[in-house]
């Protein structure tokens, strides 16, 4: 089913069955599929993946095949419909799993168990299968049954109470999440890592693996620095850290600059960028670390100076002197930036509704095994015939009966 003339992906030959909805599980499946794995996405007959209903839609016209996030999260996959909880559907599923290396399962643990997709059931039937579960709070622990959401996961990670970082002096202002679905996407990425880890574990031990990924721990693991601040210094980790960086306001927006305390050449380069002003000649200005009480005055002077610049202009001049400074871009400015365009990071992908739209491609470039979109995200049940008849050898009659029973 793949185009023989296209170069192979790194994971060519790996077979994955995905029974997951929403964002985290499907993102894991997408990463593996774009790397070359064959991913068969199994959806509920009728409604399909709930994320088919997520806005935004292409040209704002809602349709199960026009969801932009769905179209992104399900590239390169084969799509079938199957009621995995009904006995005839379960039988077909097990025929799929018999050929698979990995099954990727999403949802809450109780629902997973009810559908017979728990590790005890699957490993009994398929020794050697890697079973990756992506669930709101994980399969074990006192909160395993809890309901999750992007907001709840982001706040559980420790990042929320520190966001937005610049509101240091305003503990009465509510914690925020970052834009988009950062916790769920990081969980999906981590699930892909965990799945590969498990495949190597299977090679080392010969055993199938139960991979238990929660939607809360992957983002929480980003908070190692604040965990260390707490355990080493007793700082409980509230709002205020921007890790040594600061926003500088220009004529038309802002730039961000980070003067790493250990990199004195960057400090000097920044003073050079400002033309080594008279006010910066005192001993306090020898390094960032020696600013002390002058810190506030320093930043006030910097803002006064930067106000005459446009942000892109200042950014280019600063980078010309190796000063770590970046513009604060809108999404449009990031997408249209010269660098992102030159690398082809944002490229047209087709959607099942027939349109195509520019989307992020991959977070890495492989020199030998290009990462690429192999197939358009499936319309509901698009590959039923190819997979059930072509792959599993179901007869037309068997498939017809399954359809009539509402299983497919």
């Amino acid at each position, binding site marked *: 089913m793949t185009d023989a003339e296209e170069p192979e992906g*790194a994971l060519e030959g790996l077979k994955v069955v995905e029974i997951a909805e929403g964002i985290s599980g499907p993102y894991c499946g997408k990463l593996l599929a774009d790397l070359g794995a064959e991913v068969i996405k199994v959806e509920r007959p009728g409604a399909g993946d709930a994320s088919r209903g997520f*806005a935004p839609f*292409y040209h704002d016209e809602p349709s199960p095949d026009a969801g*932009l996030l769905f179209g*992104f999260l399900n590239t390169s996959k084969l799509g079938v419909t199957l009621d995995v909880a009904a006995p005839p559907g379960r039988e077909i599923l097990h025929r799929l799993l018999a050929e698979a290396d990995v099954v990727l399962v999403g949802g809450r643990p109780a629902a997973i168990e009810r559908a017979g997709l728990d590790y005890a059931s699957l490993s009994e039937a398929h020794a050697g299968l890697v079973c990756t579960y992506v669930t709101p709070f994980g399969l074990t*622990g006192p909160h*395993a049954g*809890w*309901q999750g959401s992007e*907001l709840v*996961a982001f*706040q*559980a*990670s*420790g*990042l*929320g*109470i520190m966001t*937005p*970082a610049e509101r240091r002096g305003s503990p009465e202002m509510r*914690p925020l999440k970052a*834009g*988009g679905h950062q916790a769920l*996407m990081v969980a999906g*990425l981590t699930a892909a*890592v965990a799945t*590969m880890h498990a495949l*190597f574990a299977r*090679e*080392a031990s010969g055993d199938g693996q139960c991979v*238990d*990924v929660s939607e809360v721990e992957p983002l*929480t693991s*980003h*908070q*190692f620095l604040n*965990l*260390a*601040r*707490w*355990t*080493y*210094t007793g700082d409980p980790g509230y709002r205020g850290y921007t*890790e040594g*960086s600061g*926003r500088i306001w220009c004529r038309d927006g802002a730039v*961000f600059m*980070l003067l790493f*305390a250990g990199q004195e050449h960057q400090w000097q380069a920044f003073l050079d960028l400002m033309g080594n002003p008279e006010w910066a000649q005192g001993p306090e200005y020898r390094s960032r670390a020696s600013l002390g009480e002058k810190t506030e005055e320093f930043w006030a002077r910097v803002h006064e100076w930067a106000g005459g610049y446009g942000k892109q202009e200042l950014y280019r001049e600063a980078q010309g002197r190796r*000063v770590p*400074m970046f513009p*604060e*871009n*809108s999404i*449009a400015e990031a997408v249209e930036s010269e*660098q992102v365009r030159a*690398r082809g990071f944002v490229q047209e992908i087709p959607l099942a509704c027939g349109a195509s*739209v520019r989307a*992020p491609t991959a*977070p890495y470039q492989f020199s030998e095994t290009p990462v690429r979109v192999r197939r358009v995200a499936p319309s509901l049940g698009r590959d039923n015939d190819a997979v059930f008849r072509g792959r599993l050898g179901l007869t037309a009659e068997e498939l017809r009966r399954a359809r009539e029973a509402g299983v497919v």
Partner: protein
Amino acid sequence: MSDGEPLPLSGVTVADFSWVLAGPRCTSWLGAMGARVIKIEGPKRPDQYRSVAVFEAGKAGIDGSGAFHPLNHTKLGCAIDFGHPKGLALAKRIVAISDVVVENFSHGVMERAGLGYEELRQLKPDVIMVSSSAMGKSGPDKHHVAYGTLIHAFAGLNSVTGYEGESAGTVGGTFADPLTGTTMVLAVLAALWRRRRTGRGQLIDLSMVEATMMQLPELVMDYTANGRVAAPRGNDDGIAAPNDCYPCRGEHDWVAISVRSQEEWEAFCGALGRPAWCADPRFADQQSRFEHREALNRHVSEWTRTLSAAAATELLQAAGVAAGPSYSAAQLYADPHYNARGLFVEVEHPVVGRKPVMGLPYRLAPGPGPRYWAAPTLRQHTDLVLRDILELDEAEIASLREEGVVA
């Protein structure tokens, strides 16, 4: 370092030239999976994170930083000045016995040092090199230098974070760096998987800006398809209400609540004991609740203020409503769930003693592994690497040390 049963990455050697955050996070995970990771630092130019001021009282110094430790567990650490010709020769010998090379210097540093991919594959034809930088290894701005928080600004993450009506906000703590580290791990594992089947290595080029933009697909596509440029909107998702953080009884005490369906709304009202405002027709369906979320959020806040975040969470979760506290670092470290799942792993460090690091944020059973040991001190494994791995004799090592090539 153990000789027990084979771990998933047993037999894989990683030459680790990385520093600061993203690269070290990647290689610590590879170490936990069983790879032999050899971290190479300059004796006079050690990892900058060794100087980040997270020190216990009386433990400040090159080996004491709590910023360095959690990113460098489960590695061997050696100090080799690869700016010196003899040090470069040693670094090349390490590469020649390695399967994977990881680096995250600014673009061009490895090439100028004589350690670019083209040189490395002469030394080890099937080497996998993972190279991460702010902007990637191609394009007109590949030389630009940046750190994590600048990446957030460039990638547009700031522009979609913040209170409604504001222009941008900054994500607290670190985000793009650890994200890039995790992405690097996936790239290494995929390339190793490929190499086991074909015997071929490759170069993987990773841009932190792109790793971050990859996290914002629907916002990128809403712009490219619909011309809409997203702005900060607090915690709103445009659909659900209540869906926000609400103040609780204590200081820094907040509960996040997400009610995303009629069924969950009924459960939510039930958990609160069905106060009169729940029957307000403005709150009858999801669309109307979202339109009137300001009024709704005032009612919810009045209720949450009477409770601790922990108590509100228990009540709501018992009713099947998504809820949870906004954790500080101190609170998440005390969380019974994270602790029961073994998210924090204690390791014994020669300078700071027993300290937690973040373990791999998932469980794998039956394994084997993962395994963990504390981050190396600056010179901890120099002799081990030179003597036992590169098979130098004691006299050679002593002379290199005298010349300042190694420490």
